[in-house]
Structures are given as structure tokens and as C-alpha cells.
């Protein structure tokens, strides 16, 4: 069920790295199920430099607040402002709901593939 073209972190973010363009980052189906109904999303400014593991934003469901962690080193090139307006899409389409686009400069070495992530969340 976890798409094979994504990589995953133990903090339950996914990242799609491919081609020459920036990578897209979101949270996994497991994460959205844990959170429940997502009602609020706070994302960084374009141009922000991120270290792997650094907090890049906040996601809130009705019942909880959770931080978002960067899966890689890089720079934010775009934020999904449409998703900020309708954050509930994270529940209905977690792997299609990207939050930020990142120009990756490193730190992608120890990301998990779909199989390893599925094991982690069992």
C-alpha cells in the first residue's frame, strides 16, 4: 500500500526524489491515521534551508499537534498553499498531498523504501 516510488522516514514523512526537479515531501498514511482529522497546516517560507531531521512545519488534527521533520538536507523551493487551504486532503490522499518541494543537497542515504517502512509500521 506504500508507493514504491517514495522513500520514508521513521518520523513518518515521505519524500519523492526523481528526475532533475525538486523533491516533494508529505506525511504517510500511517501518520494521518494516527493524527485523525487534519484541520491545520503551517509550512515554512520558500528559500528556507533545512537540515535533515529539522522541524519544517506543524500539522494539527482536531485532537493533536504534531511537528513535521525534514527527511533530507536541502532548500525549500515551493510550498503547497492549496493544501494549507484544505488540509483535510492529507487524510483522504496522504501520499498525493505534498507539503513542500525541496532541492535536495544531501541526507538521503538512510531513507527507507516502501518495504522497510511497511515493516516499521506493522
Amino acid at each position: 500500500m506504500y508507493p514504491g516510488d517514495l522513500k520514508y522516514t521513521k518520523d513518518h514523512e515521505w519524500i519523492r526524489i526523481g528526475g532533475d526537479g525538486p523533491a516533494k515531501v508529505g506525511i504517510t498514511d500511517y501518520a494521518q491515521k494516527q493524527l485523525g482529522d487534519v484541520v491545520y497546516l503551517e509550512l515554512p517560507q520558500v528559500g528556507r534551508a533545512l537540515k535533515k531531521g529539522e522541524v519544517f512545519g506543524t500539522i494539527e488534527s482536531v485532537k493533536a499537534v504534531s511537528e513535521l521533520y525534514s527527511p533530507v538536507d536541502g532548500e525549500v523551493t515551493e510550498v503547497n498553499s492549496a493544501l494549507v487551504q484544505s488540509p483535510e486532503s492529507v487524510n483522504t490522499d496522504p501520499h498525493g498531498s505534498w507539503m513542500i518541494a525541496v532541492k535536495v543537497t544531501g541526507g538521503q542515504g538512510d531513507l527507507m523504501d516502501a518495504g522497510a517502512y511497511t515493516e516499521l509500521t506493522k
Partner: protein
Amino acid sequence: MVEFGGWDMPVEYSGIVDEHMAVRTRAGVFDVSHMGEIEIAGNDALKVVQHITSNDAGKLADCQIQYSALMTPQGTFVDDVLTYRLAGDHFMLVVNASNIMKDFHWIAERVKEVGGDVAAVNTSSRYALIAVQGPAAKDVLQSLTGVNLSTIKYYWFATGEVANVRVTISRTGYTGEDGFEIFVAPSAAERVWDAILQAGKGAGVIPAGLGARDTLRLEASMRLYGNDMDETTTVIEADLGWIVGWKKESFVGSDVLRQQKAQGTSRKLIGFEMLDRAIARHGYNAYAGGEKAGVVTSGTQTPFLKKAVGMAYLPIDRTAPGAEFEVDIRGRRAKAAVVPMPFYKRQK
């Protein structure tokens, strides 16, 4: 599942928003068996109830209910309760799960003080409690009972059978919708629960958990003990003067309440709406004029109104509707404004 007052309880079944909307538009069924019951009986029962609760239980007829408070001598909340008059010499207090033992010991001490022909008994284990809440609640429940539900007015109760099980049906709830709470023997509770869900299937009735119970009560501006009031806040500060029987003689806490009513208090519980895009939550600090002014007691993004609202204690000169203040949202200040409560009121 989460632990709550010693009970394992579901936070959500199909999702807080889904359950919340079901209660606002159809109906939801809640297992609230964790609530406690303390019965006070004897020829002097009314005297004791009048002494220990804020409201005037002398106004109750048989089968009538009132919202009330158990208070300390300082006028602060030991608990908030519903007082049921089962008979002229027999009352039942429905109390919060986490306070059952505290309340019971408190009441037992007061009974000793008052003396006379009266006893208090903790009957919590005799009852499971199932709440059916929402615009479809009446029709769904009516299909399972011979009691004419239309004849039970808001904050009254009747006894009868639901799904052939002996129950007490009260027209009360904690959601801001029309609905009923059903007291049933624990051994028969599952049968009643299943029957209501089965009968409500066609109407889209679903089970609802603690999460939706909290968002529904907050949207309807009903206070939650432990969040919005406790032993450090008085009934007047919680803006619940309407549950005080002002015409009663002296009762526990009455001196402080009368004084606060006459002279005012330095702070008050208010409702607010966020102006900046942010959600204020329980425990977040409120600031006014750059200074710490109070604290948010409850707050969420409400699923039906789709607004970030909450309650907070603020200095009395900051409590007029429209008054703006700031909430510290994990290190960031976000603007909020005082608004009248309730946030949500159902159409009648």
C-alpha cells in the same frame, strides 16, 4: 482506546469530524458509563442536597433534573453535577468519572454535618449510561420504547423499557443537540447499545467517542470539569451564576458567591474565536497589552462551525465581546477576540 478516569474508552470510532457531524445532522450514540451516580435518600435528603449543591433543588418536581455544582466553602468547584429528583426524599447526582470517590467522600462528610434521617450511597456501579444525541435521536429511540418520548421535556426523565430492558430515560446531553441519556443495568447495556445502533442504521446513526464528545460540548459552550473549572475557580468566575439558587438559605460556598455577585470578580471565563489562523488549546497562555493575562481552558477547531474557538479566563476588564487578546501558540502570538457563548445553538 485511552484510559479515562479508570475506564478504557474509545477516543474515536469512524473519526472525530465524522462523528461530530453525525450528531449535528443525524445522531450519534455514546457509551458514557464512566459517569458516576451518587444517591441521597431519607426524610432529610432535600436538606442535604440544598446544603451541598449550588442550585435550588427545592424547585424540582419528581422526574425533573437540574444542572448544579458541588462547592467548597470558597465557592469553587468540587464538581459539576446533574441533580435528579427521583422522589421527594430521594435524589441522584450524576457526577464526573474522575471525581466519583472525591465527591462521595465530600458528600458523606457533609451528610454527617447536617445529620438527621439521610444516607448517601455511591451507586455508580449499578448503572451503565448510553447517550443518544442528535436530531434523529428521538425517532430512533421511539422505535424501541413504549414511553412517549415527546412527553419528556428537556431536563426531565421517565422510566420504562428500551429494547425490553428496564431503563431510566432522561432528556439531557452534552452535545448541544436534542437527545436522551439512558441509565441501564450494566448487564443489559450491550443489548440496548446494539438495539439503538440497529434501529438507527437507516437514519445514519453511528457510535461516537470521547473525542467528538469534547468537540461537541465545546462547540455548544458546555464547560468541562478539570479544564474550564475546578477547585481553584468559583461558580461566578466560571460565569455560571444561573446555576446558583440565590433565594436559598445559607449553603456550602454561598457566602463567597453572594459576595462575588455583589462586588464582582477579578476574572471571568469567556468564549473566544481566533482571529489569526491558529488553534488555541488547553493550557496555552493568554496575553493582553503585552502581559500574561490568563489561560486557555479549552480550545479546538470545531468541526461543524469550522472555526477555532475556545474558552479562557481573562481579567474582568478584558471580557467584553469584541475585546482582543493574544494566545501564545507554542512560542508564537496569535490574535483572538472575545465572543458571546454559546458558539453553536441548535435551531429549534
